[in-house]
């Protein structure tokens, strides 16, 4: 009896638009956010109408959107400030982490000495240290960046360190056989292998990074979203406060989404 050669499934229709996974993730999360916001505002309006909630307890969507429009300029300004400080802080943190992790790989005793300390420091809610850092570093953008860098450092460092040590024995032996030294191995093998881990670390650190920046502003008065929220709260301009809360939440969510998308892109390219 012959084993019949089976026909394969017909090829997929060429007219279907094929989106890459990271792009789908981006659209899904952004769309989800827009949907949730629209839904939340609609529910809010319904709740206010139904239960006759007074405006000082919870301003209605109209008031919130009006406040958003009225203060669009300063809110945009504050958002940019917060995001830029966060990005700068993460960048500083990443560079220092890479250098530190490379040092750990090069000198095992250094790793043995400092790694447990890093692990312990990672569990401590370092945002508690923020007031201290503000005292030490003063106020202003530089302070925000430094706080973000300091507080995200431990998470990113551990991720990068894991990444630099990620290459399999086979790959490391390959580099040896090719005659590569420590620096070449670092540049050609370890660093590329570490990139996906770096982006995973950034993703984990992302939401707390924005939070750190807003904290720093909250405590030090640097002109970002955090400072504006507290300002609105203390002047009892609740519509503006809520507008800022929504913007802050959306920024935080989108920032996290961006890191997730980047992580997906870099992970895909990793063989």
């Amino acid at each position, binding site marked *: *009896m*012959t*084993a*019949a050669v*089976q026909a394969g499934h017909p090829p997929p229709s060429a007219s279907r638009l094929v989106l890459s996974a990271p792009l789908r993730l981006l659209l899904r999360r952004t769309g989800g956010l827009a949907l949730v916001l629209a839904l939340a505002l609609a529910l809010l309006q319904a709740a206010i109408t139904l239960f006759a909630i007074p405006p000082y307890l919870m301003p209605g969507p109209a008031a919130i959107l009006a406040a958003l429009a009225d203060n669009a300029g300063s809110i945009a300004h504050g958002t940019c400030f917060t995001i830029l400080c966060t990005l700068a802080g993460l960048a500083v943190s990443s560079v220092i982490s890479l250098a530190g992790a490379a040092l750990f790989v090069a000198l095992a005793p250094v790793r043995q000495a400092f790694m447990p300390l890093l692990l312990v420091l990672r569990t401590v809610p370092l945002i508690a240290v923020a007031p201290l850092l503000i005292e030490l570093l003063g106020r202003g953008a530089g302070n925000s960046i430094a706080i973000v860098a300091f507080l995200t450092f431990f998470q990113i460092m551990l991720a990068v360190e894991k990444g630099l040590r990620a290459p399999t024995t086979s790959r490391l032996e390959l580099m040896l056989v090719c005659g590569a030294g420590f620096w070449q191995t670092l540049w050609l093998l370890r660093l590329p292998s570490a990139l996906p881990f770096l982006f995973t670390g950034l993703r984990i650190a992302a939401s707390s990074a924005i939070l750190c920046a807003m904290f720093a502003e909250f405590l030090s008065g640097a002109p970002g979203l955090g400072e504006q929220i507290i300002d609105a709260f203390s002047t009892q301009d609740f519509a503006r406060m809520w507008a800022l809360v929504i913007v802050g939440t959306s920024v935080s969510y989108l920032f996290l989404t961006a890191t997730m998308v980047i992580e997906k892109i870099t992970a895909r390219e990793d063989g």
Partner: protein
Amino acid sequence: MGRLVVSGVSKRFELGKGSVEALRQVGLSLETGQFGALIGPSGCGKSTLLRLVADIAAPSEGSITIDGEPPAQCRRDHRIGFVFQDPALLPWRSVLENVRLPLEVAGKRGVGSGHSPMDLLKLVGLEAFADARPSQLSGGMQQRAAIARALVLAPKLLLLDEPFGALDEITRHKMNLELLRIWQATGTTALMVTHSIQEAVFMADFVFVLAARPGRIVDQIEVGLPRPRDTVTMNDPAFGALVSRVRGGLFGEPAGMLAYG
């Protein structure tokens, strides 16, 4: 006790766009105490068939009976033993506690029937590891523990899904010898899915050869080699002829052209 009859069984899976026919009109039977082997290429439905017999899934058409009862009844009476490709030992239990698991699940209904877990560990040669954790055992040893677990309630039917697939050839052959020894000591009916032609012919009384897309039985070969079998059996010309015949069924040569004997 343990007579398996599969008749006209088909299995279709509904996917997003259309359905996949995993099995079409499959039929086979095994008498009590016989050993059957299912062999075929990837996608021929052999693992699916095993799961239908174990009542892990239900057929779209056809019937399966074990001693005249449906598999669901047999399963609920705790009379089916299944060995997976992944030993699936629970890491938080010792080896002995893992073997005891079916007894605990069956509760009162399990008391009095079957074998003692310790006796089974002795049978599979693991009595020294009774208190060890699964992570301390090698792959082959874990699979032996899984076999002991499958036998603890003296099942009517022992089903094995490529139990030695993850092992190297040398260990695999040793495990085959072990399994034959254990199986003959318990007298259960057994049905095993395998990728290895040699393993199928070595172990079984009947080899069922399947083809893919759709999954169906294309040949049924009676292995008349005497028991007990051991490594020397593989030198028998009859063994080689049977292997050729199975290979023929798998790779498209007409069956019967290479008759043995």
